[in-house]
C-alpha cells in the first residue's frame, strides 16, 4: 500500500495531476487556475508542470468557459472546468443545460461531452453574497448531466479521476469548507468504489440519515452526539445525486423505518424532495414516519454573521430524528 496523507484540496490536486498524466487530452480551464493555482489552490503547480496549453487561465466569462469547453470536447479534448464559486455558475447555465447536457441525445449518441464542471459549493466560510450557494438540484433536474458530491479526501481523490474518465458530463461538487479541514490517508493503489454509488458510512438501526457533500460531516456529528441519547443512526453518503443510487437507501429505510435527508440547499425542491418522494413510493409500508428534510431555509443565502443559524447543524438533524421517532 502506497499511502499518503492528504487534505481534500490536496486530494483534488493529486487526482487531477494523475488524470492529466494518464490522458494528454485532459485540459483544465478556469479563472485564476494557472499562475495562482486557483483561489482555493486546487490546481496549484499544475500549470507549471503541464504548461499553459493544458492549464488555461480563461478570460473572466463563464459562458465562455463552458462554451469553449464544448468546442474542445468536439475536437477530442476532455476539459475539466473550474467555476470559481457556486454563485458564478449561472452565467454558464445556458451552455450547461442546453448544450453540454443535450449534445449526446440530440446527436443520436454520436457526440459525447466528456466535460467535468468542478464547483466549490456550500457555505460556512464567512463569505459575502454568491459565494455559498448550493445549486445541485437544478443540475440534477437536467437530464444528460451527472451530478456527484464528495465529502472526504479519500473519496475525492478517486471521484475526481473517475469523473474525468467519464464519457458523460459530470457536475462535480466540492464542499469548499472542507477543502483544508481534515486529512486522510489515501492508498493511491487501492481499487476505488464506483463513482455513481451511495455508501453507508455509519451503520445503525434507529433511523437513516441521508447526506452528501458538506452535510455528511454534519450527519456524522449528529450520529456521534445521538449516542448519548441512545440513538444509533445509520448514515448514508449519497455521493451521486444524478443518477441517484437508491438501492442502499431503500435497504436502509426498510430496516430503520425512518429517514431524514440533510443538505444545505433550500429545502423547497431540494434533493430532499426527490429522495423523500422516492422513498415514500418504494418503502411505503416500511415507513414509520414520513421522510423528514433538514435543509437550508427558503430564503436567499444570508449574511455570513448569521449563516450558522441558517445552515443545517447537528442539532437540527437530531431534532428531525426525534420528530421522526415521535411520529
Amino acid at each position, binding site marked *: 500500500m502506497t499511502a499518503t496523507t492528504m487534505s481534500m484540496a490536496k486530494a483534488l490536486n493529486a487526482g487531477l495531476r494523475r488524470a492529466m498524466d494518464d490522458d494528454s487530452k485532459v*485540459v483544465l480551464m478556469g479563472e485564476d487556475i494557472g499562475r495562482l493555482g486557483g483561489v482555493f489552490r486546487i490546481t496549484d503547480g499544475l500549470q507549471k508542470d503541464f504548461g499553459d*496549453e*493544458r492549464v488555461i487561465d*480563461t*478570460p473572466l*466569462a463563464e*459562458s*465562455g468557459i*463552458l*462554451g*469553449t*469547453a*464544448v*468546442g*474542445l*470536447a*468536439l*475536437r*477530442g*479534448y476532455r476539459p475539466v472546468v473550474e467555476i470559481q464559486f457556486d454563485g458564478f455558475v449561472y*452565467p454558464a447555465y*445556458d*451552455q450547461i443545460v*442546453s*448544450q453540454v447536457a443535450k*449534445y*449526446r*441525445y*440530440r*446527436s*443520436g*449518441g*454520436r*457526440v*459525447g461531452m466528456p466535460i467535468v464542471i468542478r464547483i466549490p459549493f456550500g457555505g460556512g466560510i464567512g463569505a459575502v453574497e454568491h459565494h455559498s450557494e448550493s445549486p445541485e438540484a437544478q443540475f440534477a433536474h437536467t*437530464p*444528460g448531466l*451527472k451530478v456527484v458530491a464528495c465529502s472526504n479526501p479519500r473519496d475525492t481523490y478517486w471521484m475526481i479521476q473517475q469523473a474525468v474518465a467519464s*464519457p*458523460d458530463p459530470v457536475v462535480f461538487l466540492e464542499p469548499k469548507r472542507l477543502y483544508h479541514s481534515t486529512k486522510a490517508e489515501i492508498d493511491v493503489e487501492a481499487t476505488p468504489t464506483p463513482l*455513481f454509488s451511495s455508501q453507508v458510512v455509519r451503520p445503525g438501526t434507529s433511523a437513516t440519515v441521508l447526506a452528501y457533500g458538506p452535510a455528511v460531516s454534519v450527519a456524522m456529528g449528529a450520529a456521534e452526539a445521538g449516542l448519548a441519547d441512545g440513538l444509533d443512526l445509520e448514515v448514508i453518503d449519497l455521493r451521486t445525486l444524478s*443518477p*441517484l443510487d437508491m438501492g442502499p437507501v431503500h435497504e436502509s429505510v426498510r430496516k430503520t423505518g425512518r429517514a431524514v435527508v440533510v443538505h444545505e440547499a433550500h429545502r423547497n425542491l431540494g434533493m430532499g424532495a426527490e429522495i423523500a418522494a422516492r422513498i415514500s413510493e418504494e418503502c411505503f409500508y416500511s415507513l414509520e414516519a414520513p421522510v423528514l428534510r433538514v435543509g437550508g431555509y427558503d430564503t436567499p443565502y444570508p449574511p455570513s454573521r448569521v449563516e450558522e443559524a441558517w445552515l443545517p447543524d447537528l442539532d437540527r438533524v437530531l431534532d428531525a430524528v426525534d420528530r421522526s421517532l415521535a411520529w
Partner: protein
Amino acid sequence: MADLVDPPLVQLLTPEGERVEHPDYRFDGDDQTIAALYRDLVLTRRVDTEATALQRHGELGIWASLLGQEAAQIGSGRALAPQDFAFPTYREHGVAWCRDVDPMALLRLFRGTDQGTWDPDEHNFGLYTIVIGAQTLHATGYAMGIQRDGAVGTGEAGRDAAVVAYFGDGATSQGDVNEAFVYAAVMNAPVVFFCQNNQWAISEPTTRQTRVPLYQRAAGFGFPGVRVDGNDVLAVHAVTTEALQRAREGSGPSLIEAFTYRMGAHTTTDDPTRYRHSDEVERWKLRDPLERVRAYLRRVNAVDEAFFTDIEAEAEELGVRLRAEVRALPDPDPTTLFGNVFTEQTPELAAEQEEFRSWSASLETEVAR
C-alpha cells in the same frame, strides 16, 4: 442610419453579372469553378423551395428558408478546406450542402424525427444550433483544440486548419457571441466569424441590434472585420478564403459581415408582411445571388445552354427524391426516447423505459380487447 448601409462592400461580381476588380481581394478560380458554384447555388435553392413546399403540405414541422442567402453560404462553404470545420445556426443549408451532408438529414430534423444525426466529425460540420449564438463559443473552443493539436501555422499543406462560425445579425447582440470574440482574440484562435447580416432578426431590423455596421465590431476586440456583398458568391469566396488562410497561418480570428437579405419569411410560421414592406423585398430581388452568376456565365460563354438545362434536370431529380424520401420517413419508435441520454443507460432510465414499454403494451392489450 445611412452608415448601416453605406460603407464600402467588397464586390467582385455586380448584380448585372459583370466582374469587377477589388484592390485587396480576388477570386482565385476559373470559369469552370464558377460554373460549379452556380450548380451549388441552384441545387441549394432547390432544396430550400422543396422544403418550404413540404412544410406547406404538412410533411415538415417547420422550415427556416435560406432564400436569398445562397451566395453567402456557398461562397463561404466552398472556401473551406476539407480539414476545416464549420459551426452552423439553423439556416446553413447551403453550407451543409458544401460539407456533403445529405439534405435528408436536415429535412428529418425539421420534420421532427430527430434533432440532427449527421456525424459532425465525418463532415466537419457541427450540429444545427438553435440557441442564438451558442455555437460561436463552440467554434472558438474547437479552434483552441486545433491550436493544441499543433495544426496551425505549420505551413504543411492539408494540415493547418481553421474553423468558421456562422451566425446572424441578431446574434451579434448575444453575450455569447461577444465572449467568443474575447476568447478568440485573447487565444489568437484560428476562427472566422461569419455573420450573415440578412437585415432581419425575425421582425427586428438590424438597427435594433446596432447603430454602426456590424463588421466594425471586430476592431474593438482586436481583429479585422470586413463587409462583403453577401449576394456575390465570388466576393464571399475570396474574402472567406483569405480569412481562413489567415487563421490557418496563425494570424488569428477575423469577422466577415456578409451583407445579404432574407428574401422569405423567418421560418414557415412567420408572416413578414406584418413588419416589412414588399418594396424592400422587390429591391433585393434585383440583387439575386443566382441571377448574376447565370448572367456572367452566359455573357462570357463559359458554358453552353445544356449546362443550364442539365442543372435544372438535376434539381428536379433532387426535388423528387427528397419529396419521396421525406414522405416515406417513419416516425421514430418511442422506446428510442430513452437511449443516448448517457453513454450507458442508467438504471433509472432503464426503469423508465421498462415502465413505458409495459404501459404501452397494456394499452395495446386494452385496445385489442
